[in-house]
């Protein structure tokens, strides 16, 4: 508890930690740009943003969950189930807003169940959402069966994932909107402050008169809705709804982006904006490895290694 030492360490944590990832991102961009000129074309860069939109939306929406000291492993199947829900709403001839709401509602509902169990029954989030992963996947398979459901002749719905607006894919606008909204919520709303407060000191937040359980439930609802939105975009992008979308490992990508962004897995410290940095870092690494023809299996290993290294560095600081 040497004060001088604490100041020094805090100085490093304060100034280096957020910048370390930005620096790493810059280095990687330079390396890829030098070794493969195709990397730095505007087409490829837009492609990267489009590719990370789905994971990015889920990651920005999961940041709050992790900041409160929780985690949501069920986002993969939620993505599949919301795609199916939208598909069936389309089949039933519903108007587009209802279709989208149906998809989002499915995700919010799963999030609500997760949140209620975690907040009110105080069961460990890992196990709860792992069980929910299985339950939601099973539900998706019952609802959708193992076969693909093609979404044809739905130009409005297809526009969500494939349309372009002013030369940019529409999904990028959605991603940007969600990201800005979540940054706004974090920085400019009572909820954002409360999420950080709960992660920092749940007991003190309770003794300050805040509704801890309600807030915790709400962050899981947001996370579920985010995964559902990602599911809508995905199904629109590939014109298909399928019960096995968002395979095991999706949640890892999402969590990886959040923790790479410096959000502590123990709760507390965190930032949606930095999660975006994590998203882009992983996106650039993926894209670069694809361009350099790194096989998919090495990419998986690299991803695991990146997470371990990033977290180990974070743990050393703490």
């Amino acid at each position, binding site marked *: 508890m*040497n004060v001088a030492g604490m100041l020094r360490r*805090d100085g490093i944590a304060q100034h280096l930690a957020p910048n370390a990832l930005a620096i790493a991102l810059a280095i990687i961009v330079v390396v890829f740009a030098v070794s493969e000129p195709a990397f730095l074309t505007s087409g490829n860069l837009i492609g990267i943003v489009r590719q990370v939109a789905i994971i990015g939306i889920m990651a920005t929406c999961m940041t709050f969950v992790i900041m409160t000291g929780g985690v949501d492993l069920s986002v993969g199947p939620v993505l599949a189930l919301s795609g199916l829900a939208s598909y069936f709403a389309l089949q039933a001839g519903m108007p587009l807003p209802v279709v989208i709401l149906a998809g989002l509602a499915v995700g919010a509902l799963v999030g609500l169940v997760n949140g209620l169990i975690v907040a009110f029954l105080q069961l460990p989030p890992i196990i709860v959402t792992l069980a929910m992963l299985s339950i939601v996947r099973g539900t998706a398979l019952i609802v959708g069966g193992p076969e693909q459901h093609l979404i044809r002749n739905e130009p409005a719905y297809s526009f969500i994932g494939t349309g372009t607006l002013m030369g940019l894919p529409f999904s990028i606008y959605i991603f940007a909107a969600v990201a800005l909204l979540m940054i706004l919520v974090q920085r*400019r*709303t009572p909820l954002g402050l409360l999420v950080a407060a709960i992660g*920092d*000191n749940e007991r003190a937040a309770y003794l*300050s008169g805040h509704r801890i359980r309600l807030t915790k439930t709400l962050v899981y609802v947001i996370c579920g809705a985010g995964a559902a939105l990602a599911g809508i975009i995905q199904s629109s992008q590939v014109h298909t709804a399928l019960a096995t979308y968002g395979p095991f490992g999706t949640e890892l990508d999402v969590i990886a982006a959040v923790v790479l962004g410096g959000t502590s897995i123990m709760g507390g410290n965190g930032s949606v904006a930095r999660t975006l940095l994590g998203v882009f870092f992983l996106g650039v690494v993926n894209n670069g490895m694809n361009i350099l023809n790194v096989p998919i299996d090495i990419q998986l290993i690299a991803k695991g290694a990146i997470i371990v290294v990033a977290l180990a560095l974070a743990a050393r600081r703490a």
Partner: protein
Amino acid sequence: MNADAPVLRGVGLGKTYGNLAALADADFTVRPGEVRALIGSNGAGKSTLIKILTGAVLPTRGTVEIEGQAAPLGDPLGMIRRGVACIYQHSNLAPAMSVLDNIYLGRQPTRALGIVDTGRQRREALDLLARHDIDIDLDRPVGSLPTVKQKEVEILKALALDARVILMDEPTGWLAAADVARLHATVRALKARGVGIVYISHVLDEIFAVCDTVTIMRDGRIVAESDVAAIDRPTVVRLMVGDKLAGEASGAALQQRHPRGTGVVRMSARDLGKRGVFGGVSFDLHAGEIFCLTGLIGSKRTELVRTLFGSDRFDTGTLEIDGRPADIRSPQSGMAHGIGFVPEDRHREGLMLDMNVTENLAMATLDRHRRGPLLSRGSMARAGRQAIDELSVRPPDGGKLVRLLSGGNQQKVLVGKWLGRNPRILILDEPTVGVDVGAKAEIYAILRRARGEGAAILVVSSDLEEVMTVADRIGVMVSGRLVATHDAGAVTQEQIVREIGGGTA
């Protein structure tokens, strides 16, 4: 060996954190067969001393000798091997494992292949039980035993390691009265076998019942050492809480006392009780007064005030606020009744250490900074600047992380968080623990100002000097009962000390 040679001896021990001395120049000895009480208020330096003796903390200065040999400092395992055992306040046992396994935790005798030699283990354990005349079922999981038995298991664990000195940190804190007597019998048996014992407790009865000698600490120093037989309770209490009341402090206290403040009753408690904790507590708290609840640690003041705020519930009795019955079932409803609460442990219960001063100050007043669905950072910053100014938080920087402030400034932030609500009733639990003298005075000034603005203030404090300084009225709690209330101007410190010491005095 000379029986009077100390078995454990600390010389010139000191520990500083930054520029704060937690312990200064402490000489401490324990002889074989001696039960030495170690007492002092919170923050007096007891726990630092104990941590140095168990090796958990490396002292800045001084040496420790065990049976005349210099012991390695800051090495917990080394201290245990040399025969210094500590029985902590919180259990240091594995609850699901059997008594037998716990006694031999980490060093069961084994045969080939690491198979535990249960026969030998049991024989040795039974031998130990017989030698120390302790009766316990070796096969019960420790978690299923009553707490007093768990303490005995910890003692056995220490004895199995051939402990020469056992440090007991508030060993009776979790025990019922009958069990305390049991534990004391065990302590006397250990003493008879020449084990040196350091007995840390806040309960004077126990010290007079079981200890031979007493060491009293205050403000990081050892202020007195004595045979228990040569000292009386009021002296002990006075040494513990300090009697530097003369001069300016009393002058400041006398300048303005407002017993019953404006005369308007804000909060009225009748016969409040919580089963097994406190009971029969009745008092009135008036607007514009500071009412101090004092007593020894463990007299259930904290438990009482928690139920007033709503973070805990009382079982019996009634509580009225502004003459109307109040049903306070959560901090939210407590706050809706205009109550603010500064908890005792500011790190665990009060502050968000990794958030900044402005955010911490706004934590109880977020509604004020709401603009539609949004939170106005500008409004928060303005309120923060104003509060920092009024409380003279240093450095006056709203963006500073609270973790980086000194204890006194942290405490000002915590008090300021509630003052921002202009609470009608403000409850503070030990508002100046671990706070330096200058900040203490500032906090008192802040409380007096809030009183001047008509707030009803309830302060829980173990520091008698503090009580005599700020209180308009004083309530004394002993073992869960409010035994007396006085107008501060009409009572002497001696009388309070007598009452705190318990009914027997």
